[in-house]
């Protein structure tokens, strides 16, 4: 029988953290190899698992951006929520919009200088085009109990109300079965960091260029660090994150002006000796950063700049974020599974 290769993070517990639904990652090349289309693949997965599940389809030849504007290789191109084999006809699926390259968009979204310099010619996907949605809901798909939100980077069971954060870099490692991922609680630092977004048309979270680098989408002062604090997450090895952040810095992106002012970006920039536009960070963003110990004095403290290999080796120590985490092989967290095809 023909089968589709996928990666599955099964509902249950990993490192004592609760995975609230089945999570499936699929490489579009595997869909093509199985000789089927996306629709058949999604329905086969949903029917085989017969559980509340989120399904993300990836294009590894494309690129995307993290919420703080770091460009990475690989992108989610379609997200689905399914429950007991059913996919809600109106709200169960969404495709991400391919962003056309132009000099105009580079002027409006300065973090995309990474696209021009490092990944020319590669397709860029972030969030969906709101015009493709039946009504202007958030970048979310829902079927029954299952919800796949923020352009496929957080999933939840709406009935049990349990949720998990899945930042894109950790998903990429799980899909490829590469290295370790951290399974832990999101914690205060990432809770603050995910609000330090960049301005993007059809972004992962916001459909318009609502918040610029240096601002905070949270705008909730000392409460920002509590928003996702106790929610489980699966994130990339910090060295993987550090590598991509250094790429952005090498490409001339200024934290606080071109890319977001998240704690991870700022801490890598500080130790890499890269310039930052601290004057462009808004007061409300400072308030949130200071609530997790990132203040101007800390960032302006003179430290000996580290080389790329040195920073990669010390990434766990230098990049704050994730609480009660355990490093586990990505190939164990997301198991290779064959979905039978009729």
């Amino acid at each position, binding site marked *: 029988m023909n089968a589709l290769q996928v990666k599955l993070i099964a509902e249950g517990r990993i490192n004592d953290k609760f995975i609230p639904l089945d999570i499936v990652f699929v490489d579009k090349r595997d869909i093509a190899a199985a000789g089927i289309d996306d629709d058949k693949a999604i329905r086969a997965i949903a029917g085989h698992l017969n559980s509340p599940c989120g399904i993300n389809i990836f294009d590894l030849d494309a690129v995307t951006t993290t919420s703080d504007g770091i460009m990475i290789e690989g992108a989610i191109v379609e997200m689905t929520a399914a429950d007991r084999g059913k996919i809600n006809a109106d709200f169960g699926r969404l495709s991400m919009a391919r962003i056309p390259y132009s000099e105009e968009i580079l002027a409006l979204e300065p973090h995309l200088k990474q696209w021009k310099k490092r990944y020319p010619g590669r397709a860029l996907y972030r969030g969906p085009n709101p015009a493709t949605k039946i009504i202007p*809901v*958030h970048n*979310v798909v*829902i*079927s*029954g109990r299952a*919800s796949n939100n923020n352009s496929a980077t957080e999933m939840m069971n709406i*009935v049990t109300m349990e949720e998990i954060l899945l930042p894109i870099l950790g998903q990429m490692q799980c899909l490829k079965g590469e290295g370790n991922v951290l399974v832990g609680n999101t914690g205060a630092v990432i809770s603050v960091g995910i609000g330090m977004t960049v301005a993007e048309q059809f972004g992962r979270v916001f459909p318009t260029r609502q918040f610029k680098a240096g601002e905070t989408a949270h705008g909730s002062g000392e409460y920002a660090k509590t928003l996702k604090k106790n929610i489980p997450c699966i994130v990339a090895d910090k060295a993987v994150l550090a590598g991509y952040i250094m790429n952005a810095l090498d490409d001339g992106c200024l934290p606080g002006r071109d890319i977001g002012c998240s704690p991870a970006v700022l801490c890598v920039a500080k130790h890499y000796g890269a310039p930052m536009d601290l004057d462009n960070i808004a007061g409300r963003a400072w308030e949130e950063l200071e609530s997790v110990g990132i203040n101007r004095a800390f960032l302006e403290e003179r430290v000996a700049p580290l080389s790329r290999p040195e920073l990669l080796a010390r990434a766990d120590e230098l990049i704050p974020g994730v609480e009660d985490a355990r490093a586990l092989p990505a190939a164990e967290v997301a198991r290779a599974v064959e979905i039978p095809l009729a």
Partner: protein
Amino acid sequence: MRLMHTKLPEFIAKMKNAAKKGQPEKAFALRGLENLKSAKMQSLRTGRIEEAVAELASRPDVERVELIVMPRVPETMHTVVIKGIAADGSSPKAVVDVVNILHPTEEVELENCREVEDRRPAIGRH
């Protein structure tokens, strides 16, 4: 009559009556409107829902009828009013904001239903 609306208590009474019509022994339960204190319900659909309640209640293989009302759009944006109230009952300041609420879709209620007849119009129609 198509554009008129039914009072909430009247809507609830109509549904109970429709379930009991001709078979008072059949049980009826309504969920999903508990938080509403006053509302006007679309009359056109009220009649159709009454008809559906009566139709299912009249089936010999049905012992009880459940009527569940849930948001069709699974993410609803709500206005939030935060009011500070003074001792004399006046409000020196209010803040108005929004919050999005995610809801499960109808599939959570349809498990084990052997037949589902979807009579809803397409989204955007009434």
